[in-house]
């Protein structure tokens, strides 16, 4: 189980379970304000760099199991590439698939496409196979040329017609579109966070 970095103060206890919340993590503080954020040099391209047209930046995804960054130089637009450093061996460790599914382990992976100002998250489990996955990715990233992403994610400035989308910066320094991870998961994360915070606060008061 990985600890997550949150914007909470260091007296707060760990809030995650082994449910991959770190993948969906939204910091409670301002982005970059936490003590243990990766250094500037470690970060993957930040928002400013991403908005400009990128040259040769590899699109890569991050599997829950692959924490190390993928530094290979192939460029495969819209594709998901598993990190070579932590390739998973089939059937190892010997944990029954039944047990793994029951843990509801995170099957969300990040997808980056050259030229896109932010990354997306896609749930591998939601698709039946590669064809469906590629179709979904095409739809997700075609919004940069054809405007048709769901209304609730788009804010239009009535004055000048500029469109805004809500994004957030995750712990890897990537800018992610808000909304890919189901609200229920996010809510559970916040709820557990809140309950723990509340418990700690209560104890502090009593002391």
């Amino acid at each position, binding site marked *: 189980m*990985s600890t997550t970095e949150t914007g909470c103060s260091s007296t707060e206890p760990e809030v995650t*379970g*082994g449910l991959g919340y770190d993948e969906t993590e939204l910091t409670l503080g301002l982005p970059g304000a936490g003590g243990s954020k990766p250094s500037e040099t470690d970060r993957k391209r930040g928002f400013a760099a991403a908005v400009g047209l990128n040259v040769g930046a590899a699109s890569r995804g991050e599997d829950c*199991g692959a924490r190390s960054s993928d530094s290979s130089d192939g460029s495969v637009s819209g594709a998901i590439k598993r990190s070579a450093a932590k390739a998973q*061996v089939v059937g*190892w460790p010997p944990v*029954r698939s*039944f047990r793994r599914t029951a843990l509801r382990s995170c099957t969300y992976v990040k997808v980056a496409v050259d030229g896109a100002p932010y990354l997306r998250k896609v749930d591998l489990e939601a698709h039946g196979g590669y064809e469906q996955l590629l179709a979904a990715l095409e739809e997700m990233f075609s919004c940069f040329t054809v405007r048709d992403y769901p209304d609730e994610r788009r804010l239009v400035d009535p004055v000048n017609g500029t469109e805004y989308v809500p994004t957030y910066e995750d712990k890897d320094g990537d800018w992610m579109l808000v909304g890919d991870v189901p609200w229920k998961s996010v809510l559970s994360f916040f709820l557990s966070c809140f*309950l723990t915070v509340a418990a700690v606060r209560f104890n502090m008061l009593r002391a």
Partner: protein
Amino acid sequence: MVGGFRWAAMFPDEVWEHVFSFLPADADRNAAALVCRAWYRLERRSRWRVFVGNCYAVEPAAAVRRFPEVRAAAIKGKPHFADFNLVPSDWGGGAEAWVEAMAEGWPHLEELRLKRMVVSDDCLELIARCFKNFKVLSLVSCEGFSTAGLAAIAANCRYLRELDLHENEVEDNCLHWMSHFPESCTSLVTLNIACLEGEVNVSVLERLIGRCPNLKTLRLNHSVPLERLVGLLHRAPQLVDLGTGKYAAQHHPELFSRLESAIAGCKNLKGLSGFWEAGPTFLPAIYSVCEGLTSLNLSYATIQGPELIKLISRCKNLQRLWVMDLIEDEGLIAVAASCKLLQELRVFPSDPYGAAQPISLTEHGLVAISAGCPMLHSVLYFCRQMTNAALLTVAKNCPNFTCFRLCIMEPHTPDYITRQPLDAGFSAIVESCKHLRRLSLSGLLTDLVFKSIGASANRLEMLSVAFAGDGDAGLHYILSGCKNLRKLEIRDCPFGDKPLLDNAAKLETMRSLWMSSCSVTLGACRQLARKMPLLNVEVINERKRGLPLELQPDNCPVEKLYIYRTVAGPRSDTPSCVWILR
């Protein structure tokens, strides 16, 4: 066998059958059947329980013919490594052949237990139709059926006592299958539906358990909300074993106190499991029954260490504990202090594919348990680091181990302090634990550990090896030693042809051998198959490049190999990726 024959004639058949009824163990009955023809005849007519460890070891019709009075059968199908996706999904293990033969020859069958088999809805319907006295259906790690098949069982098995579904893959296409239990069904003792994915009609379930006064085991699936658990418990306060459904809800003090009192009302509760999505909020509701618990399965609950400690410290009579590594060393130290009657411990990884740290579950936890729990004999432990010193200590503390399975999650991990292989540690285990029946190895290991195992592990029946050894000698030590070895499963080890061919006869004394990603060639398999007609040598090649296997040269490497003894000859249901060499 003149002496034997005279003995047999001394008493009428009924007396011998009565004598044999005191021999429950198959091994003893098998031995008795070999004494003389009369005993063979008598024993076969009086055997009513049959265990078939490999469904392909014998023709179903032959088994049914030999033992005509069987009331209870247990059959296993796929090799164990199928649990970890190493066996192709279409490999085999279908239950139809057996169910058809049994329907024909054992109409009075009452109990059927299948493990790792492919069971279709047609099979379930056949069972429901043909066995008028059917009482027990247990399906473990099976697949191929749906809730429609369960509906048939529910509707037709009038005397059903046990429906035990453990970790099966069940398609959910009949939402109201439980409504098929007739009102006249009052005989249920065990109902385990924990593995079902779909919604359960809790009202129907309430009525069902309300009319089954002998219900002792009830294991719900995760769709049953916590609020409804209260009602279910009120209707079955006599429960001995409870698997909760989803163990989380909006916090509500009233719900908590209702739950607490409902659980406290189950005065006979000895086992608890389930706890999906459990958090700290509702865990204290079970405190009142903790002292009586002998079995606790928290392995699906992502509860953190401190909460686990608070809970488990109250379980003074615990014999079996299954938990996630979130318990950490500190939690295991608490277990060692509180649970002096502990016999079996399983610690599962909460994040099997995660990065190297942050759970503080190390060799210290294992050592603490070994020191504090004198009755411990069975361990499954997933961790990320180990030392020889720790294993030596564990071996000294626990000479009574019957099952020791250690999984260090990163392959080839050495002793993290000395950087040495873990040969010394595992050798100490096998040398100290003279009753060891099952062993799983992991970490960095050379051929030396196999030398110790071959020499010392005299009671060992099942050995699992992965990413270990230097060469052929390792496998040779095992096959030339380990007198009682029945099942050997190996993956990703540099073992080749020579030890297999040199120890061919050994393979006939074992149930099965699995080898995948080793260094075995097709030529050796062909030789083995020719030499040993009572073995099925199955070569599994999923990649199917180039020529078909019959035309491949002898030096062609074999991806996966499954060898098992059989009196049935080659099976006829092999898929395209499996070749049986003759």
